[in-house]
């Protein structure tokens, strides 16, 4: 049985194809203005690259912020359920998930792939990928380099503001004071980590924790979380696809 999962995220669209519960292929691409067009495009690319005909796909499940726009999907499921299923497929021993995406961050408590509790961040950019994206810009560092840069810091700068707009001006004033780039980068990462750790501790995560979402690609962030939690995190080979993967697994039934 061939199934597909589409994760129509706020910042990126992800697609995963599965055959008999094995991953055949996946695609990740930036979300354009229209969720459906973005999804159609990468789904077609993925089918072509995997040499699978669209009609041979038995079921397509959508997840993510734009899931209701994906008209070719048979069903939509919430990203919280999808991540739980996707992570369970990769790491069945995981009990807690930290997902930091472009628009929100969440803590999910799981038992055998089922969600037992979850917590999402407040309705603002603090503690999300957006925060890092904006502040990296103020630091004039490509977002992909921010984490590695932070790892080189020996004296992380204190960033007190968690409001994206205020933190941006804080970065500019730190730069004016001559603080090293890597120290500011480390300060930004520590700020986001601290914010998310409050949520993780509220959900009583202790060990067997997975870190997923676009921000999990940030090496500095992983180190910052591991320092706080005192455990090694499970990070998938491609941390952005667990939602789409979970959708494809759910489609399999």
């Amino acid at each position, binding site marked *: 049985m061939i199934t597909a999962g589409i994760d129509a995220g706020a910042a990126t669209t992800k697609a995963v194809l599965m055959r008999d519960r094995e991953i055949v292929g996946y695609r990740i691409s930036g979300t354009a203005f229209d969720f459906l067009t973005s999804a159609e495009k990468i789904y077609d690319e993925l089918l072509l690259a995997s040499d699978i005909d669209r009609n041979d796909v038995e079921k397509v499940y959508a997840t993510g*912020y734009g899931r209701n726009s994906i008209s070719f999907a048979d069903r939509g*499921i*919430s*990203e*919280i*359920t999808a991540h739980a299923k996707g992570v369970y497929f990769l790491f069945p021993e995981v009990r807690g998930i930290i997902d930091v995406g472009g628009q*929100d961050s969440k803590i999910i408590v799981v038992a055998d792939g*089922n*969600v*037992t*509790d*979850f917590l*999402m961040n407040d*309705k603002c950019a603090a503690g999300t990928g957006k925060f890092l994206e904006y502040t990296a810009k103020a630091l004039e560092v490509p977002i992909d380099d921010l984490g590695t840069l932070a790892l080189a810091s020996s004296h992380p700068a204190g960033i007190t503001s968690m409001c994206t707009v205020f933190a941006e001006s804080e970065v500019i004033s730190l730069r004016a004071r001559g603080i090293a780039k890597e120290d500011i980068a480390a300060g930004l990462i520590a700020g986001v980590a601290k914010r998310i750790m409050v949520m993780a501790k509220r959900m009583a995560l202790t060990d067997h924790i997975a870190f997923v979402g676009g921000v999990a690609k940030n090496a500095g962030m992983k180190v910052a979380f591991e320092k706080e939690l005192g455990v090694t995190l499970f990070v998938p080979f491609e941390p952005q696809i667990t939602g789409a993967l979970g959708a494809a697994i759910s489609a399999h039934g």
Partner: protein
Amino acid sequence: MQPPLKSLDYFQKSYDIRVGQLKEKRARGTKIIATFCLFVPDEIIFAAGAGRLVLCGGRTDTIARAEQSLPRNICPLIKSSFGAVVDACCGGNLSCAHVQLVDVVVAEATCDGKKKMYELLPEYLPTYVLDLPQKPGSPEAITYFLSELRKFGKYLEDLTGNAINEEQLKKEINSSNETRRLLHRLFDMRRCDPPPITGSEVLQVMQKQFFLSPDQFREGIRQLCEEMEHRIPPARSGPRIMISGCPMSAGNTKISDIVEKKGAVIVVEESCTGTRSFWDLVEEDKEPWTALAERYLRIPCACMTPNDQRISHIVDLARRYHVDGVVYYTLQFCHGYNIERIRVQKALKKEKIPLLAIESDYGDSDVEQIGIRIDAFLEMVS
């Protein structure tokens, strides 16, 4: 989907009738008392021959008017209510006709935000504040509240020129208890699976409870209960959800609407626009003032401390209505209900009943984000 309950039309149509009734009453010299809260006993108001009208605001359009003077970071209910009064008294056309229909406001010392807002009201409307002891359950609290109620009675006597006699007060207690019994009948039917009425439908009714006259309201509930007894339950197989937390005043139906649009069915509301307004009856064989003081102090508002009675009541309701999960609703900046959520969540966790905390205001900007949380929660409890 089966056709909507016809008796709900009664509540829709009753608005104009009630406004006409109040105008007529006032023309005949009856004083109309505006209230904002369940703690002000109807029985005493009616025994003094006055009328009652709720002014508690759930509309979003009066908030900007309130923010011209009030701080922005206080709860939307306070801002909406205040904005309606200010707008109406300053010749605005935002609010409905309610404010013009009242003679005095009888406020109550509940949360800090409301108390301080009430201090600003006398500039617009004569305002009387009923004090509340906030550590309920002790004999001293009852004694104090009893003295406050008697003082309030005296105030009403002076205002209306009518003496409150014990016989009349007892009659009013019986009449209010009758309303409470009818609401118990309505809520009891929601224990069925699936229930014969949705939460959004019940909310439409509950939001009219203190707007309509008691006779009007009871007639509507009677009709509704009878119609429900003959209604084949709608085929809704969604999870059974309890809403617990802040009131949803008229104009605010956001959370109930989202929860039910996502496929769940709300089976009970632990709120001022739900069980809190009618759950306990006033003892009819007791000295009426004492019986009133005791009953009203049992209202489990989060302004009380410690509010043990609320925690156990929520657990009881969850069992009684066989709920799959609780959506805990806090109005933005309502610290009392927001902090009390921690104790509620702990108590429910022991019973293995999941809780989702939602904090929101009257605006629509977070509808999608709340929807994501509700979707995930319903998938979790299904």
